[in-house]
């Protein structure tokens, strides 16, 4: 009896979770006449790929895709490099006046700051150096999100490495840079990959700064493209859903690599 209740509850959960995703998938292959109707069918009668064709060939899906990939990976690359150095210093060296502690707390607080609250000064800064509507500008601004995240993640991984290896290398006369490259980097490799993937997902999905700082259509990312579709075209649902699905695939595939690390990854972000 208890078991039946459990499976019924699981079925309800599964329906609630999957129905919107299923609906997105089938709407993307329905001809308009099958979704602009008061009696939409659960299975498309005449499935079509015309929306995908229209979105990829006639519109600029690939351009937005390239923008999104460039910005998300660029921001992640910079954050990883900077955070790797910083978290090594924070994990291994002592700083005067508890400076390291203050720095880490500040970085944690930054994650709580509402992005809109910093938007005006960041806009003014980007404009003064001519980086509004550029990928480089977005890569820099996204450090607000990705850098604190990478620092805290990598700090955990580096603290997990036994110190003896580095001490031995130091006694043998290796410089800190050499130690970082030949000992620490290989040991935190898997951690770096996991951190990179989460950071890319973060940049991939970001909306508010992209909306405010990308003012020309050439520079739009996928979330902005989708937002324009929702707000400007009332019922072009087929193309909209096909864009949504295609924009989600990379993220879902990336996170598939992380199945096992997912729990740990989130636990680390949250601590």
């Amino acid at each position: 009896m208890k078991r039946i209740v459990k499976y019924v509850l699981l079925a309800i959960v599964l329906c609630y979770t999957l129905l919107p995703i299923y609906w997105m998938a089938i709407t993307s292959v329905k001809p308009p006449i099958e979704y602009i109707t008061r009696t939409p069918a659960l299975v498309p009668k005449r499935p079509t790929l015309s929306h995908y064709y229209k979105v990829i060939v006639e519109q600029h899906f690939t351009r937005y895709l390239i923008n999104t990939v460039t910005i998300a990976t660029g921001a992640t690359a910079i954050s990883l490099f900077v955070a790797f150095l910083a978290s090594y210093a924070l994990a291994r060296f002592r700083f005067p006046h508890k400076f390291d502690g203050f720095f880490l707390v500040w970085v944690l607080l930054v994650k709580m700051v509402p992005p809109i609250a910093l938007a005006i000064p960041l806009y003014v800064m980007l404009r003064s150096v001519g980086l509004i509507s550029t990928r480089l500008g977005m890569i820099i601004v996204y450090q607000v999100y990705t850098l604190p995240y990478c620092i805290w993640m990598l700090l955990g991984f580096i603290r997990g490495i036994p110190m003896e290896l580095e001490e031995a290398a130091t006694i043998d006369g290796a410089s800190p840079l050499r130690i970082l490259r030949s000992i620490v980097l290989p040991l935190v490799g898997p951690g770096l990959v996991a951190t990179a993937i989460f950071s890319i997902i973060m940049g991939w999905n970001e909306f508010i700064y992209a909306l405010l700082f990308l003012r020309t259509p050439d520079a739009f990312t996928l979330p902005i493209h989708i937002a324009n579709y929702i707000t400007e075209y009332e019922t072009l649902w087929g193309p909209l859903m096909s864009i949504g699905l295609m924009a989600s695939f990379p993220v879902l595939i990336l996170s598939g690599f992380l199945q096992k690390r997912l729990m740990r990854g989130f636990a680390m972000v949250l601590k």
Partner: protein
Amino acid sequence: MVIANRLSRLQDTLSQEKYFRFIFLAPALVIVVLLTIYPIISIVYTSLHQYHYIQGTENYVGFKNFIRLVNDKFFLISIRNTFEFAVLSTFSELLAGLGLALLFKDRFFGRKYLLPIVIMPMLLSTMVVCATWRILYDYNYGLINYIIRTLGLGEVGWLINKSIVMESIVLIEIWQWAPLSFLILLAGLQSIPDELYEAARIDGAAGIRILWHITLPLLKSQVLLVVLLRSIDTFKLFDKVYALTGGGPGNATETISYYIYREGFTYFNLGRASAASVIMLLIVVAISAIYISFTLRGQTS
């Protein structure tokens, strides 16, 4: 001799440490100062000034922007809406996450495959989520109203009815973020040793009482974490409002973030938008401080 040699090298490196620690930290420090500390100082400065675009001047006006703000009916409405959304979403996500975690606590057939599916919504871009729910919620052609019609009930104006639009957005928020609360609480549940449950059962305690007297007290820190993370995140609500309602109908879904966006980036009312940002930052600091005092109290007792 060799040892002495090595020791002197060690001392060399230790003195090197002094330089390297700051060289390593410097890039991160520069980025953090430039992108967070400077902007915060800058909005405090802006919030105390009045800008005139046509003349291109700025005047110091003290707290005038703040005084105007607290007398602005729309700003007060946006604060109320933001809190309503944050409280409703946080607690619903907490409950949903707890329910899910209890369902997934023990092994069952198919658990391995269900887990990644249940947490999928959390990985999607908020805009994709909005797009999907926008068509589900559509008054005429949406799936949800179609189901309601088939059941013989009246249609619901999910995104156009003033009195339920907030709850509609909360439902989307639960769909997207209950998985996070689920993951955190599940990790907590799995760290509770089985012996405790067995002992309770031997003592004659049953379902709800075990949950209330054993499980929940032991989950306290995870529950607090969910409440902190989700209340801070829901407090920022902007994307869904922008894409689905534009703050409407009326002002029913106007949040503080949306208010700042409109004042700053549509009306170019920089002083007022900055003053609202300062107030928003103060509220976030207050929420975090309450959380920290809670966790500290938990640790000492």
